[in-house]
C-alpha cells in the first residue's frame, strides 16, 4: 500500500469511527457498529452494515429507517479525503420508500451539488409546475431543492437533529451533545476548505481582526467553482 493510500485509509477509518460514535450516541437500537466501510483500491463507501438501512423508532416501535451512504476517495491534489457522493434519507417503514433525501454530488452534472428531495404531494405546486412546462409536474420528488452547495450543505448531524427534534424519533439521552460536537468538527473542516477556496478573502478578514497575514508568492487564486456553483 502506498503512503498516500495508507493516509487515505486512516482518514476514512477515522471518519467511519466518528460516524459510528455519532449514530450510537444519537439513535437507540442500532447495530454496533452501525456502519461498515467497503473499500476497493482508493475508493470507499461508508454506510450501514450490508448496504442496508438503520432503524428509527417511535416509542420503541420501528416506524421508519435511515439510509446513510458516503462515497469517498482521495481529492484531486492527493492530500485530503474527498466525499464524491453522500446520501441521507428517511424511509417510511410502511412501504420502504423515501420520504426525504439529502444528496450531495461532487460532480453534479447540472443539478445543485447539495440538494433535498421531498417525496410528497401538493396540488398547487404540481399545478404551477404543469403550467410552467415541467416534465413531471405531479412528482415533487423530481425537484432538486438546493441546500447550500458543497461547502454550506447540511451535515449528518443536521439530519439527525431534524429526525429527533422535528420528526420526534426516539433518541439516546444526551444525543444533542454528540450532535453538536460532531457539527463543530464538520464546520471546522468546512471552514478550512472555504479558506482554501478564497484565501485572499480569508486573509482580508483576518487582517480586519488584527492578525498579521502575509501572502505567498504567487498569491493563490480563488476557486470560481466553489464560489459560483450551486
Amino acid at each position: 500500500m502506498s503512503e498516500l493510500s495508507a493516509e487515505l485509509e486512516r482518514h476514512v477509518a477515522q471518519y467511519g469511527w466518528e460516524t459510528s460514535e455519532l449514530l450510537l450516541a444519537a439513535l437507540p437500537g442500532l447495530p454496533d457498529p452501525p456502519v461498515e466501510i467497503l473499500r476497493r483500491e482508493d475508493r470507499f463507501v461508508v454506510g450501514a452494515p450490508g448496504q442496508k438501512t438503520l432503524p428509527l423508532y417511535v416509542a420503541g416501535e420501528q416506524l421508519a429507517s435511515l439510509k446513510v451512504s458516503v462515497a469517498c476517495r482521495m481529492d484531486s491534489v492527493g492530500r485530503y479525503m474527498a466525499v464524491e457522493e453522500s446520501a441521507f434519507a428517511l424511509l417510511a417503514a410502511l412501504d420502504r420508500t423515501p420520504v426525504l433525501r439529502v444528496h450531495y454530488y461532487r460532480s453534479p452534472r447540472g443539478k445543485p451539488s447539495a440538494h433535498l428531495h421531498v417525496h410528497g404531494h401538493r396540488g398547487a405546486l404540481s399545478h404551477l409546475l404543469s403550467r410552467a412546462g415541467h416534465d413531471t409536474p405531479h412528482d415533487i420528488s423530481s425537484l432538486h431543492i438546493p441546500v447550500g452547495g458543497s461547502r454550506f450543505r447540511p451535515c449528518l448531524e443536521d439530519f439527525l437533529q431534524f429526525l429527533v427534534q422535528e420528526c420526534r424519533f426516539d433518541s439516546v439521552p444526551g444525543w444533542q451533545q454528540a450532535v453538536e460536537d460532531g457539527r463543530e468538527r464538520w464546520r471546522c473542516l468546512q471552514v478550512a476548505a472555504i479558506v482554501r477556496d478564497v484565501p485572499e478573502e480569508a486573509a482580508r478578514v483576518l487582517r480586519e481582526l488584527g492578525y498579521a497575514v502575509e501572502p505567498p508568492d504567487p498569491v493563490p487564486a480563488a476557486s470560481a467553482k466553489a464560489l459560483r456553483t450551486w
Partner: protein
Amino acid sequence: MSPNIQEVSLKDLNARRRAILARVGMTFQDLAARAEARSLTGDEWAAWEEIREIDFLRNQ
C-alpha cells in the same frame, strides 16, 4: 466497536451486483429506467441504492 474496513474485489462486486439484480428480477437497464421515472418500489429502491454504491466502488 470500530467499523471494519472490508476489502472487496471487482469479482466480489460483480457477483454482488448480479445477486441484487436477480433479487428484484430486473436488468440494470430496467432498474435504471424505473429510477429515472421515479417509480421504484421499496425493494427496488434499496437495490438501486446498493448498485449505485457498488458502481462507485467499481469506478463505473
